[in-house]
Each structure stands twice: as C-alpha cells, then as structure tokens.
C-alpha cells in the first residue's frame, strides 16, 4: 500500500464529485431539506382536539359539562349545532375530531341519581391519535364527575383513592421532534453513503474507466480505500452539519457525550460503506445499483424502530432486526441524545455494530477483490 497512490485517488474522487454541478445540491441541500421537512413533519402529538357539540339538554348541568371541556386547553369547541345530521357530516368531512352529543334527558338522569350517557363520537381514522383524544375526553368527564359529585353529595367523600403521579423521563414534554430528529440523522447518513459509494464504483464500470484503473499500479486494497475515504469524509462532514443543525435549529437536547456519538458514526459507516461496496459488486448499471440500494434501505428503515416500534413486530421479524445495523445505531443515537447514557449502558449496541460492520466490510472487500482479479 502506498499512501501517495491512495491520496491521489482520493483527490481524483473529490474532484469528480464536486466538478459535477448536479452533485452539489445532492450533497448539501438534499440532507438539509430532508432534515427540515422530517423535523417539522413527524409529529403525531395531540395538542388540540377540535370538538363539535350538540346540546339537546340546555340546562345548567349540560353547560357545566361544556364549560369543563372549554376550560381545558386541549379542547377547542369549533362548532355547535342542534342538528345531529349536521354534526355527523362535520365528522364525516373530518372538520372535527370528536363530536359530543348531550341527550335531552341529561339533567333528569343526574337529578334522579342515575348516570347520564353522553355520546362521544370519535374519528378513528388515525387510530393512535384517536385513542389519545378519547383518553383526554374521558379525563375531562372524570374531572366533571368529581366536581358534580362534590356538589351533589355534600357529605365527606374523601375515600382512599389512588393518585397516579406520572412523570415522563428523557423527553418530559413528549416532543416528537426530540425523538425523530436524531433518528433522521442516522437515516440520512445511511442513504448518502450507500448510494454514493456504490455509484462511485459503478460509474467507472459503466464508462469503462474501471479497466484503466485496473491496469494502473493501484492495488485492489488501495482502490477500495481510495473509493471509500472520500465518502467517509463527506459523511462525517454531513453528519457534523446535520447534528449541529439538530441541536441549534431544532433545539434537540444533547444529554450525552458527543465523542461517543462520533465513535458510533464511524462504526456505522463501516457497515454502510461495506454495503455500498457490496452493491457495486452485484450491479452492472447505475439503475441496478440504485434499485438495489432502495431494496436495502427500505427494509433497513422499516425494521429499525425508526417509526414502528420493534416490540410490536412478530417474534421472527424481531429476531431479524438484530441483523440491522440501523437498529443499533438508532438506539445509540437516541440513547446519547435523549437519555444521556454512556458506554456502560450502550456497550451491547456498540459491540453489535462493530461486529456487523467488520463482517459486512470484510465480506464486501473480499468480493470486490475477486471481481478485480
């Protein structure tokens, strides 16, 4: 191995990469746009619930119930009507999230000491948000019941009740951004390295310049290093930019150690660069390479726990996710960002990432060698 040869190849690669005007937006703008869009979009938080209201009772009690909803910051009563069909059509048009119907005999039931039913219709099309909305509505009704019971039954009512004091850790305000933005960083790195490494080799093949490279005194290992080093540098630069953006633009708290993050990135790059090289050995054209990249990225993304919790998957697929380097990298990056945990907690992920990286990279390099000989 000669340092000089590798250096020259790296230089050539950089010149090629940046001379093509169309590459520049891909390298700089695409990651930032993706980070911005992802960062702002991926939120399934229920911050407001729009309510449509139908009050057939129109009594002090029904108004008290409505006020209890109105006083809650989450609920926003946007529509009130006397017509049940009009209310349902609002729900059908998705203009309201839930519809509350108070029946005419609402107050009579309460006065008689019976339970009055209030109908709550919820738009279930986004099931999780609907579940949260329903839980919120239930909590408001519970509060209303407490108030009303204190009025109706003035005798001592302090029974021994459970007071659930809930505390979310790591992300106390439950902001979606805090969870997703670090994940996007991982995802972007994967796309860029996979695609650009395989392309760098394939382009030489397609243009026939691979033959020229082979007849030069370059050795296979030098060729591999020369082809991967530029993308290691580019990825690290992108990673740093994107991480800074996440911290300073999105104000994602970084609870843990930056250097640990850096180490994890380097280990992760080993896997992705290895896969990129591997793709280049099994593809003949750019089109093929891109499609193969797509096949690799799609399952890697779906089965990493990025959006869909791994615990929800069937057992067999849960085992398969252990082979996915993105899974470990996500655990590390989220652990470092949100939980602030260190190597003492994350060593299983780090060792798995190292092992997968070494296996994938050596296998690809071997295959690449064979192809060149």
């Amino acid at each position, binding site marked *: 191995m000669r340092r000089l040869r590798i250096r020259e190849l790296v230089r050539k690669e950089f010149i090629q990469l940046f001379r093509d005007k169309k590459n520049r937006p891909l390298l700089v703008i695409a990651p930032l746009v993706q980070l911005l869009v992802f960062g702002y979009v991926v939120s399934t938080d229920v911050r407001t619930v729009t309510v449509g209201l139908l009050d057939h009772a129109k009594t002090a009690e029904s108004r008290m119930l409505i006020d209890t909803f109105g006083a809650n910051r989450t609920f926003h009563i946007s529509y009130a009507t006397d017509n049940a069909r009009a209310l349902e059509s609002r729900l059908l048009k998705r203009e309201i999230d839930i519809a509350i119907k108070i029946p005419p005999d609402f107050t009579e039931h309460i006065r008689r000491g019976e339970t009055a039913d*209030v109908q709550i219709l919820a738009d279930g*099309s986004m099931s999780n948000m609907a579940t949260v909305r329903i839980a919120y509505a239930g909590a408001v009704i519970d509060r209303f019941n407490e108030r009303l019971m204190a009025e109706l039954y003035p005798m001592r009512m302090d029974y021994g009740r459970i007071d659930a004091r809930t505390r979310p850790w790591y992300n106390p305000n439950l902001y979606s951004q*805090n969870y997703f933005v670090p994940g996007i960083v991982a995802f972007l790195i994967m796309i860029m390295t996979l*695609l650009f490494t395989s392309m760098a080799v394939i382009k030489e093949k397609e243009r026939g310049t691979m033959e020229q490279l082979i007849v030069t005194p370059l050795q296979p290992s030098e060729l591999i290093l020369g082809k991967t080093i530029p993308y290691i540098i580019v990825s690290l630069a992108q990673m740093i930019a994107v991480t800074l953006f996440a911290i300073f633009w999105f104000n994602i708290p970084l609870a843990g150690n930056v250097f640990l993050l850096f180490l994890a990135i380097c280990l992760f790059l080993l896997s992705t660069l290895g896969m990129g090289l591997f793709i280049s050995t099994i593809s003949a054209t750019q089109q093929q390479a891109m499609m193969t990249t797509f096949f690799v990225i799609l399952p890697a993304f779906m089965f990493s726990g990025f959006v869909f919790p791994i615990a929800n998957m*069937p057992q067999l697929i849960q085992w398969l996710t252990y082979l996915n380097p993105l899974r470990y990298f996500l655990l590390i990056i989220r652990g470092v960002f949100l939980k602030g945990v260190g190597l003492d907690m994350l060593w299983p992920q780090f060792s798995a990432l190292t092992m997968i990286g070494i296996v994938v990279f050596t296998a690809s390099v071997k295959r690449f060698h064979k192809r060149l000989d």
Partner: protein
Amino acid sequence: MKMLTIRAVARKEFYHLIRDFRSLYLAFAIPLLLILLFGYALSLDVDNISTVIVDFDRTGVSRDFIRRLDASAYFDAHVHLRNADEASHYLDRGWARMAVIIPPDWTNSLRADREAPLQIIVDGSDPNYASLSLGYMTQFVGRENRRLLADFLNRKGRASINPPVAGQIRVWFNEDLESKNFIVPGIIAIIIIIVGAMLTSLVIAREYENGTMETIRSLPIRAGELLAGKAIPYFMIALIDVLVAVLMGQVLFSVTMKSSFWLLVTASSLYILVALNLGFLISIVTKSQLVANQMAVLITYLPSLLLSDFVFPIVNMPTVLQYVTYIVPARYFIDILNGLYLRNVGLDMLWPSYLVLIVMAVIFSLVTLVFLKREGL
C-alpha cells in the same frame, strides 16, 4: 399521434423492464412486500407495554393491583424489582417502557381514606408510545378508583352512588382503532409513487446517459408519442400493483374497501398519471440517473410519505408546510383513499380531491410534453 409508433415504443420499454430483473422486482415484489410488511409486521398500535414494578408496600392489596394491571391487555407487568435504581436501569437500557413504584404504607393510606400516591415513570423518548401508555394508565387508575369508591360507600353503609355522567364512546371509520386500517390503504399511494415516479425518473435519463437520445431525435417520432409509449407499460404495472394491493389488503388483513371499486380505480389512474409525468419531468430535467433518482425520492417519495396526512397529521405541521401540502398530489389521493376505505363516502364528498387530481394530471402532462419538445423532439 400514430398508434403504431406508440405501440412500438411501449413494446421496447416493456422489454427493457422485464429483462432487468431488478426493475421487475421493484415493480412487483416491492409492492407485495410493502403490503405484507405493513399488514403483518409494522404496527403503531400500543399493547403489552413492558412495565417494571417496584412494590415497597408488599401487601395483598398492592399485589392484587399489580395482578390486575398485568392482566389487562395493555400492560405486561411481571418484572418485579427491588428499588427505584434498578427501575431506572431498566428504563435507561430500554428494557422497560414504564415503571410503577408503589410506596410503602400505600395500603394503609388507602384504608385510612387518604390519597395514596402511585409513582409512574414512563420512557418519554418515543412520545407517541409514551402518551398512549399514559392514556391507558390513566384509564386503568380511573377504573381502580371507581372500585375503591364503591368499596368506600359499602363500608360506610351508604347506597351506591352513580357517577353523574358516563361518556359513551363510539369510534367511527375505524371501529377497532387499529393502525393497519389506515396504513394498508395508504400503502397504495406509496406503491404508485415507487412504480410510477421512481422507476420512470430513470427512463429518459437513461436514454441520455446511454447516448440513445440522439437516436430517438433522429427517428420520426413525436414527443407525445414517445411519452405515451413510455408511459403505457408503467401505467399498466402500477394499476396491476394497485389491484393486487387492494386484493391483498382485503384477503389477508381484512382491510375492506367500503365504497365504490370504480371510484378507487379512477382515483388510482389519475394519481398514476400524475406520478408518471412527475417521474418523466424529473428525468428530462436532470438527464442523469443518479440525480434523477435522488430528486424523485426528494420530490415524490418523501412528500407522499410525509406531507400527505398519511401517518403524520397535517394539522400538526407549521403553517408554511401546511400550505406546501396543497401542492402535494399525494395529499388528495390519501384523502380519497381515506374516504373510500374508512369513511365510506362517495363523489359527493370527494369531488374536490378528484378535481384537483384531474387538473394536476393535465398540467403535469402538458409541462412534461413542453419540456420534451424543447429537447428537440
């Protein structure tokens, strides 16, 4: 426009497609895979929340409480730990999502009619999971409290008191509140984008990169004919994919389309047209397969995943992005899919979305044609 020319181009493009097994894979296997994956493996539903218990109280009452918690479908609470430190280790490592800490003297407080605090720590890093877990926990504790109130009234020898109001909850459109009911239809939109836009974004760029665009220029073929010929194979494949997806959703996952089948076919065809033209446009403008592919991901794939109300609600987005979603075709298609699959509505309610898709299909076709003409065809 000559039918013969169009047919010839279509045939050539078709051969290209079936001779490259990867394109074929992308065209047929990826859609099947997506439906299978989303139907079987990927779910946003939250159940069996892994919960660790620290019980300092250790009485029959606290043990009964834990047993009921574990028995509910939402919680999986059989791991008992000795102290809060251990619980925090479990949370740090991600082995548990929730910790329930029952303080000493808990039962005594309950018996003495005092408030008995229960400490619940939830891993908030995934806010969706956390807020659902908290919601289920609140419901569970609410039920427990109702039971305690009934006990209290019994002990005091009072007649039982009914809670004044009960919310009768009825969920519309997705009665079982399962995420697959909106995710499986949404996959149709993703499949169309993959087959319609991602595959076609390479088609014309390939001609440029291989130098065959010169050959095409010299042929007696017009821009419209070339476009139509290239579009036909992809249109057919995309439509077949849609039908397969609909069928699989119905047979394997019992996600049933409630409204008219032809409305779905019309909407899909319109959306395929939009996607195809977007793909061609990207291909013509970039003239490079790598750049075209990346642009296609950026302009078509990601917006249809992110800015379409598919998984991530538009109302939660910043206002600027909400405006941006109006020009995302997927938004209208997802609206139609939601209407046809979940809400069982017809054209009377969905016509605006249909209209927008028609307008978009026409505009994109014209723009693509103009761009192709400018290339000298």
